């Protein structure tokens, strides 16, 4: 029962909130959809912390895609042994994780100590930082604990199949039963992060401007009548 709630109900609730939340936010709050950058106030620390955090987190994301979405059988078929995979994943993952954490630490320190940045910090931001830090710290702790204290934990036999099963619409909560608590906690905190995601400044991730690489430099657009001083005519009155 507990397994079902944690590993079936919660994930689907999260996915629903994540998707509908974004749709809703995009529909009603395009204006609020921004990075809310604070570089204008301070850029010395930001220039170290922000790239460290963002590139770190991008690598972490890639690692998670590799670890969770790609079945172990595929990498083995590609000739990568489980041990080799494990070593590479742990080394790169830990490195990226620590970069992310260091970047985050710099950013939080900056946020707290730079007057204007702190004044511009909302309750929402603080809550988001808390959850984000928790996810990263627990994730790192799980990896470190499993590899230093134990001899590594092969999440690709438990967590990964469960993760995929959620998306196959054939959830297998039992796989998660014997997963070490830190890994469970990491997964749960990540679910929480995804729940609040659409309502925080993190939304900027979904609009990462990759289209910039292909669009023409200068954008031309026609006048939008709604923006001007002339009141727009109603639909049935338009020419």
């Amino acid at each position, binding site marked *: 029962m507990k397994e079902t709630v944690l590993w079936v109900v919660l994930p689907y609730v999260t996915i629903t909130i994540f998707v509908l939340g974004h749709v809703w936010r995009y529909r009603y709050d395009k204006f609020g959809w921004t990075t809310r950058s604070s570089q204008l*106030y301070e850029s010395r620390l930001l220039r170290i912390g922000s790239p460290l955090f963002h590139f770190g987190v991008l690598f972490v994301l890639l690692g998670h895609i590799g670890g969770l979405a790609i079945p172990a059988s595929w990498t083995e078929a590609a000739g990568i042994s489980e041990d080799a995979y494990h070593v590479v994943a742990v080394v790169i993952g830990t490195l990226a994780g620590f970069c992310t954490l260091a970047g985050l630490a710099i950013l939080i320190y900056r946020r707290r100590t730079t007057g204007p940045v702190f004044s511009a910090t909302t309750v929402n931001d603080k809550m988001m930082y808390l959850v984000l830090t928790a996810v990263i710290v627990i994730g790192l702790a799980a990896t470190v604990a499993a590899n230093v204290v134990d001899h590594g934990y092969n999440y690709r036999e438990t967590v990964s199949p469960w993760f995929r099963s959620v998306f196959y619409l054939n959830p297998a909560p039992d796989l998660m039963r014997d997963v070490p608590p830190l890994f469970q906690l990491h997964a749960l905190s990540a679910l929480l992060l995804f729940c*609040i995601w659409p309502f925080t400044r993190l939304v900027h991730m979904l609009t990462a401007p990759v289209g910039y690489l292909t669009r023409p430099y200068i954008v*031309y657009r026609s006048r939008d009548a709604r923006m001007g*001083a002339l009141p727009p005519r109603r*639909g049935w009155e338009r020419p």
Partner: protein
Amino acid sequence: MRVMAQMAMVMNLDKCIGCHTCSVTCKQAWTNRTGVEYVWFNNVETRPGQGYPRRYEDQEQWRGGWTLNRRGRLSLKAGGRFRKLLTIFANPKMPGMDDYYQPWTYDYETLTSAPLQEHTPVARPKSLLTGKDMKITWSANWDDDLGGSPQHIEKDVLVRDLSDKVKAEFDKTFMFYLPRICEHCLNPSCAASCPSGAIYKRTEDGIVLVDQDRCRGWRMCVTGCPYKKMYFNHRTGKAEKCTFCFPRVEVGIPTVCSETCVGRLRYIGLVLYDADKVLEAASTPDDTGLYEAQREVFLDPSDPRVVAAAEAAGIHRDWIEAAQRSPVYALINTYKVALPLHPEYRTMPMVWYIPPLSPVVDIVRDTGHDAENAGNLFAAIETLRIPVEYLAELFTAGDTKPVEAVLRRLAAMRSYMRDINLGRDADESIPGRVGMTGELMYDMYRLLALAKYEERYVIPTAHEEQAHKLEELATECSLDYEGGPGMGGSGPFGESSGGAAPIAVENFHMLRQRQTSDSPVDPADKHTRVNLLNWDGKGTPSGLFPPEPGGPTGNPPADSGAAETEPKP
């Protein structure tokens, strides 16, 4: 030939008295809000001087605008698309608040609420960013009227490029004012720098705008604009810029800065140009060739072939007629007295300037000569390197010839008109010496000295039918707008959320809220903050508090537990 219309401006610098009325009225209309306290869409700088933001013209430092790459192709000076995306997490070339200035207000309340005391209470300056006491050390026009020079004059970017001879004489100082707005460039590097594609040039009138719903706050445009006329609203996290007062221009009235200009030195009109030639012109190999190249992009609106092409391009008859009467086109191409500001940035700026003759006139008069005599003035223009070289750095990438030509025309007009005004016979040889006829010169004089409101501002109204293409009818529901979530400037996430409200409505509400709220800075009074996300806590957006029985809504009393309105996570 692809004809497009561009709304453009010319400013006659001789007439600017540096009163800053334009800046103040513009600020009142557009940037009188939290988040843009430090922003002046229109600013007036004293030259020589550093400008606003400080030393913005130093493109080796700020890397704004375009440059030619090794193959001679036009590329963004701050780096292309890949570079932009790689540095997106921390823009390496963004001016900080200190390059503009720390905005402040004064603690006026102590003036009225201080207890009886021996000394007069003082209104201390408070930072608008932190709410703390601050020391004022710089502003948008700190070196106004050469205040603080020679300490500051050395920092003028253009002084670096002047010849040593001129630098040595620089203490024989001169001065003029340079009002600046966004140039609404034909080849805007701000738009090209925007990763989200939120900055666009309007096809109808060429006004460059930021789509507030698509801007994601990547800040690349701030670097991209060499004139530093793209600003970051630190409260909403979006870029903002001069709008050429498009809600006014659309209904045929001039921008606020022009309307209120005390010197009546601004001209607004349409220019037709060939969009196919813009890129080629912007890629002109020599910096000094850019002025001519840009002039050649403009099309003669009275040429029947241009008219035919313009009609084929869907430009309305009244717009073409307005382009034919355009004072801007006349000053740029007929009288050839207007010059672009820093053409070497290669953005093809569309606010042009008539360089000031007054520094020359002043020097001639100060040395006891007749400052209305064409011969004296011509000789002075030839020998006085100080204003001429400086003006050339500003308007023609250092080439003094076009500047001299313009100054000679202005000087010629001055002495030609003196004869006429004094009832003497006009000396037709004077216009001849600058390649004009007496009639042309008189027309130019009329436009520069006497032109009435309707002649200075030739602005055709926007066409409603142009705006909404027919296919949009099916997709756009008028209910999206009426009573939409943005009405009154406050959506589900507060001030910086919700749909776009009509600009006028939004500004009105914000202005009222700001002026009726009690504190200069929002975050200092956390207990009045009502929103989780990013409503900035000022004023009382309607619907947030229940209406007080029998009275208008206002701020709740301090002890009413306003904090409880903050939704719990």
